[in-house]
């Protein structure tokens, strides 16, 4: 078995207290090996976004441990956590989150430049070409379509050669054609470029681009299965678990 990029055990996250207590995560264990593409699905409030935030070190768990690429998140001070995010984790957001005043290359090279890397932009251009934006290098976000903006975001996530890419509803704001293209691209991130990808999504068709599907409900993992590439696989799995 290959090296684990994500290792999570006994993860619990509780918001509020007393009567207002919400168990967003309730004892989650998860292991993601290097290069694997995992989709996480489940109804609203099932805890999938909380899981993603905890994995990204954006939020801290109530109990349990998280290890990303061999680093235990709970033991890192904010600055080192920030550095880990910068170097080992790539983020793709629902709303793309590009800086409106920077062009595609500048946006994609942000993490490298934050890291003080040399030739940040040259190194990024390669990624932009790989995600199919070779002819859009110097356009600002408002000059790009939604799908193109998300490609810039993916290039940005990959620019630091991270071990893990976390994608939160990456197609939530896209039409179905662009969404499918982004699904393909994330699959390439995993298969071609060997990064682990963990994607939270509502869309079963997009989830089907992953190799593995994790289903969640009420803060727990209720199913964990391997996908065969069929577009209908995730929908059937949801039906089986009574989540649809």
């Amino acid at each position, binding site marked *: 078995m290959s090296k684990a990029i994500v290792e999570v055990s006994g993860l619990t996250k509780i918001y509020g207290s007393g009567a207002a207590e919400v168990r967003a995560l309730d004892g989650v264990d998860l292991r993601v090996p290097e290069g694997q593409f995992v989709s996480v699905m489940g109804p609203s409030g099932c805890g999938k*976004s909380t899981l*993603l*935030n905890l994995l*990204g070190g*954006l*939020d801290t768990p109530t109990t349990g441990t998280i290890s990303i690429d061999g680093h235990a998140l709970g033991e890192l001070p*904010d*600055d080192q956590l*920030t*550095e*880990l*995010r*910068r*170097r080992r*984790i*790539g*983020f793709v*957001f*629902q*709303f793309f*989150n590009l*800086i*409106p*005043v*920077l062009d595609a290359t*500048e946006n994609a090279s*942000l*993490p490298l*430049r*934050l*890291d003080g890397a040399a030739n940040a932009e040259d190194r990024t251009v390669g990624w932009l070409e790989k995600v199919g934006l070779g002819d859009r290098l110097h356009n600002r976000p408002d000059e790009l379509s939604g799908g193109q903006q998300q490609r810039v975001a993916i290039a*940005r*996530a990959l620019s*630091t050669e991270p071990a893990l890419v976390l994608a*939160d509803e990456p197609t939530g704001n896209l039409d179905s054609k662009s969404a499918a293209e982004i699904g393909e691209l994330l699959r390439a991130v995993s298969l071609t470029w060997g990064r682990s990808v963990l994607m939270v999504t509502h869309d079963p068709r997009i989830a089907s681009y992953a190799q593995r599907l994790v289903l969640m409900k009420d803060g727990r993992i209720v199913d964990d299965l391997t996908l065969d590439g069929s577009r209908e696989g995730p929908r059937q799995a949801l039906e089986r678990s009574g989540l649809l």
Partner: protein
Amino acid sequence: MNLTTTLAWRYLRGRGTRSLLTTLAVVLGVMLTFGLNGILPTMLEAFNRNLLAAAGKVDLTVTSTYDQPFRPAVVDQLLKLPQIAVASPGVTGTVPLPQDANADSGALAQVTVVGVEVGTVSAVRDFALTQGRMLVATDATALVLNADLAAQLGLAVGQDLVLPAAGGTVRFRVVGLLTAATVPGAEQVFITLPAAQQLFGLGNRITQIEATLVAGTDRASAEQAVSTALGSDYQVGGLATESSMLASLQVANFSFTMFGIFALATAGFIIANSFRTVVAERRRDIGMLRAIGTTRRRIMGMFLTESLLQGILGTALGIAAGWAMAAGLLAAMAPLFSSVAHITIGGPQFSVTTWLTSILLGVGVTVVAAILPARAAGRVTPMEAMRPQLAEVYARKIGKPAWIGGAVLVISMFGLTTGSSALIGLGSVLFLIGIALVAPAVVNPVAEVASRPLAAIFDREGALARSNLQRNPGRSAVTVTAMMLGLASIVAMISVVTSIFSGFTSYLDKSLSADYLIIPQSIILSQGNVAAGPQLAQQVGATPGIGAISTLRLGKAEVDGGQVQVIGIEPTSYLKVASFDWNAGSSDAAVTELGNGRWVIANGIYAAQHNLVLGQAITLNTPNGAKVYHLAGIGNDYLNAKLSTLYTSQENLSRDFNVTTDLLLMANRTASADQAATKAQLTKVIANYPAFRLYESQAWRDQQLATFNSTIVIFDVLVAVLAVPSLLALMNTLAISVLARTREIGMLRAVGATRRQIRRMVFAESLLLSLIGTAFGALAGLWLGYALVSAMSAVGWQMPYSFPWGGLAATVVVGIVFGVLAALGPARSASRLDVVSALHQE
């Protein structure tokens, strides 16, 4: 360019109009501080040049502290010092020129006669001849002067100029013309030292020494050495800083500085507000940057860099604008100066301090104002990138800042009640900051009250507008505060200006009650004034129709190393033609007291500066040694309102100061006398004293008032400049508050609000905000103005507080009109919002 700077610059450019508006606030603040501070040094320089004109190579001058002639042995004392290269003794005095009685007021009435030691003077002054020859040691009646002055006097080489001398007149022959240009107000003619000593009846005494320093000597240390060697009877340097014009300039400078400080405080607030908005708008960007690995420190750095860029830009533009403003104001004032004071003023001059202060303040205020918003930005969690907050982020807790604000207000009171002008300035700025902090806590209840009349006009939209304000007191408070700060500083400045002017006007009315004033042509520089012997007063007193008459004499004393002018009055007659504006505890009895020995009356400035109490002993260093005087009373008169002044009897002035000549005569007409006939008689008497002019007091008062009014125009312009930032702030915050509520407005439209209703709602909101802001601003401004006026009284600028009715009315009208104007754009854009995209806006 590194990433931080790139981002900062791009963002700054990206929010174009808004950046421009906030930068403009900095520009205006810097413009006022820089520009106004450029004017004073220029005027000082004009005076300096006036006094030390032609003295091209002089490094140092020595004169008597008491304006007394002194022994030539002082020159040898000076030459013993290793720093002094050449010391040239001289005599300077002003003599009246024979004048045609019908001559217009612009004709030259007096010239300064400079007696120079031929052997040494060429080392300290340049005498470039255009015609004729230079003076030689044996010349007893030869004279050289500037060619342009000669032309003005109608003289040529070989012709004679008759000057009045101690005994009779002396006829001088023009032997040479100089190329130098004459500075108006410093018309000089040069004769030999012995001739001048003869002319002024000085024996072998001299009035000044001009010296040059050994090359490479530090001027300040040389001045120090000379002071130490000669003692306190002599003053080193050129210009005594006690002339009344300089005092006026200092008062003006204080107000100017306050203007600048207020403008910058307002600018700081506008910038802080603008950055708060910017941080709120960019929470998602910040969240993403945090998520992908940007440290908190770096996020703060980005915002601070942005403010730094904005500060640098604003300061640069402000300095350019300030330079233009100073040049413009000086150009506008130049004719006034040359006709009234016979002084030419050049272009603006900026000291290194002014440059540094302006740059530090402009850039500093901008960066400091951005610190809190930048910290807030650093605290944005990376979660914002994942799930952007839809709720507004402006709302803030009211409790803590309001308490801090209360504390700041209390501290500001201490600042305002101290005597020091620096602390008064600090106190007033603290006061404004305190008000700004307290404002959010009081916006709610005030909105409740203020909206009632509005509801009558705007119906349902009015209620909606009010609830918009109340739901988010933080945001409303920002707008109200911006408006309030601007208006408060305006109302306060108007209060101070009104009080200063009404104070002087009241001194004018009270202390100068005589019917006639006989004043030297140029009363501006006491050094250059011509005094008259007792026969002028006798002749005026003997003129038919003249009743009471009293004179003023002028001496100079030194107290604790500082100079003070000592005015000699005649205790028996002074109150018949003039009066004092007494401070509490003093009365006319003090004037009578002056006749009973060494008593003085101090004016408010002097008393405040030295913390005097009645009966206190004051040791005055006089030309005849240290003498102990006692304080009989504290009172003010118009002529000396701006100067540290002591009044004593003319008898004391004669005994201790050797002054027996009159500087100014005041006379009353008898009840039965005919006005025209009396004036005609007096005019005849004065004709023999060409250095003096006769004024009927009413005319003189009118002339003074006209000068005031022309000065007030300058202040009005400044107030208007100060008002611009508050308009900008209001427009800015209002526009932002509409932006922030885009979704909400979309919702209102979706559930059936008409465009008209939306427009009315935004409009009502703006009107409500500006009503509250104006009310706050007016109240805070009135209080601040009152505090400033009292504070300035504590420093010695005694003035009655004058309620600025006109200014207040204008401010309220301007405030409300601004509110309406500022609402026009946002109301239009709100009503034109596309419903669907507004609802989907994230």
